[in-house]
């Protein structure tokens, strides 16, 4: 038995109360005007539902709905509308993200020939690059045929075999600081844009072999390998911007001595 007879109200009109429950409710109504007033209303409904045909009519409305009706009722729920809107929004975001990803990937996988051709660097660019301190890692510069360590001594005008190793993809160029203080582009040829190197497989370093004619001036020469990321067009930057781009560069030096003739 419930502690609050008011909770039995719903069973009055449908005659769902046991004798004890009914007694409890009716006796409580004798002392509670609000409950009595409510029961006066429920009495009208009770008379209505006392007719078996009327009960059957209401019961027919309460039969479990078939699949299609359940689906329609599910669609009408506010929560369903909110869920569907959420799913639709998620789909739109996914499609947009997929398209952005595809566009990015296509741009990244463009062959070098279809990329905008990088422009050659000016002398001012070369001077600024030569003035920066060595930095970065992941690239190597070596003279083949000479042991590493002490600066090798070479004859003026001697052809040197140089090995460049970088983590591709990258834009690469080689500078030479001559004994007279001039800075020249050693590779690729002066006036050409930095070379774009691709790796045949990801995470595989690229080894590039090239030849270089040693300076004809006697003294100390310094070769500087400049490695830039593919999205960094050094020529597009002003010479002053070179220093700001320095943290993204890898700069490796190699020194050799040119003997007097």
């Amino acid at each position, binding site marked *: 038995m419930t502690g609050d007879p008011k909770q039995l109200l719903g069973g009055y009109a449908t005659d769902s109360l046991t004798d004890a429950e009914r007694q409890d409710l009716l006796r409580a109504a004798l002392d509670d005007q609000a409950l009595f007033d409510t*029961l006066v209303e429920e009495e009208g409904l009770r008379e209505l539902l006392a007719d078996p045909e009327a009960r059957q009519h209401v*019961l027919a409305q309460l039969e479990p709905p078939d699949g299609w009706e359940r689906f329609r009722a599910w669609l009408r729920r506010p929560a369903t509308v909110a869920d569907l809107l959420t799913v639709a929004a998620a789909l739109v975001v996914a499609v947009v993200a997929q398209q952005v990803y595809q566009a990015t990937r296509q741009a990244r996988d463009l062959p070098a020939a279809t990329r905008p051709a990088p422009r050659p660097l000016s002398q001012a660019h070369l001077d600024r690059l030569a003035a920066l301190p060595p930095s970065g890692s992941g690239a190597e510069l070596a003279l083949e045929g000479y042991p590493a360590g002490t600066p090798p001594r070479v004859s003026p005008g001697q052809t040197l075999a140089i090995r460049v190793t970088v983590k591709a993809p990258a834009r690469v160029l080689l500078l030479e600081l001559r004994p007279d203080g001039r800075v020249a582009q050693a590779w690729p040829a002066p006036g050409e844009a930095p070379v774009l190197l691709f790796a045949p497989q990801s995470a595989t370093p690229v080894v590039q072999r090239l030849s270089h004619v040693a300076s004809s001036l006697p003294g100390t020469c310094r070769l500087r390998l400049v490695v830039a990321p593919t999205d960094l067009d050094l020529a597009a930057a002003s010479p002053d911007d070179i220093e700001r781009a320095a943290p993204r560069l890898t700069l490796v030096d190699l020194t050799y001595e040119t003997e007097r003739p």
Partner: protein
Amino acid sequence: MGLGYSRSRTTMGELSRERTLTRDAALASLRLRILSAARRRLSPADAEDLTQEVLLLLTTKYAEVEDPAQLVALGLGILRKKQADLWRKSARRGEASAQDATEVPLAHGGPLPDTVAADRARLRLFAEAAARLEGRCREILRRKLEGLSFVEIAAELGRPVNTVYSWDFRCHQRLRTLLGDRWSFVAGGEER
């Protein structure tokens, strides 16, 4: 409980006197409740007359009924019928002072046509509201109309009966909310 209906008496004389007191006290209390309920819907004079008519029936036709709960049930039923009769009479011009139309049997002996029509309208509204119930409210109402008690419904749902009382109370409130202004008519009030 304001009046108290103790039955702990030992002798027959005491028991008889207690029964009388209990009945008298219950009728006195019931008179107040009926009068107050009638005043909510009728003029003070009509409410007073209606209350007297209900009490008259309870003290004459149902003089042997002593159980307060049964008196309340009878009072509710008589009040409802008398109230409906009063509305019906007042709705028909001139019949309030003429012969009581409800006392005149129709040729076929069935209920009055306007009563039938009103009951059909009530039933339609109630069924429409019931059809809008969802989930457990729908299930509980269906079982109640099938004749199950709260204890039986609790057993079917595998829940304590007190939980089913609470659910049903809220569901009943929900049903009344769905009916809105039409609840009064469905519950036997005047059509607006």
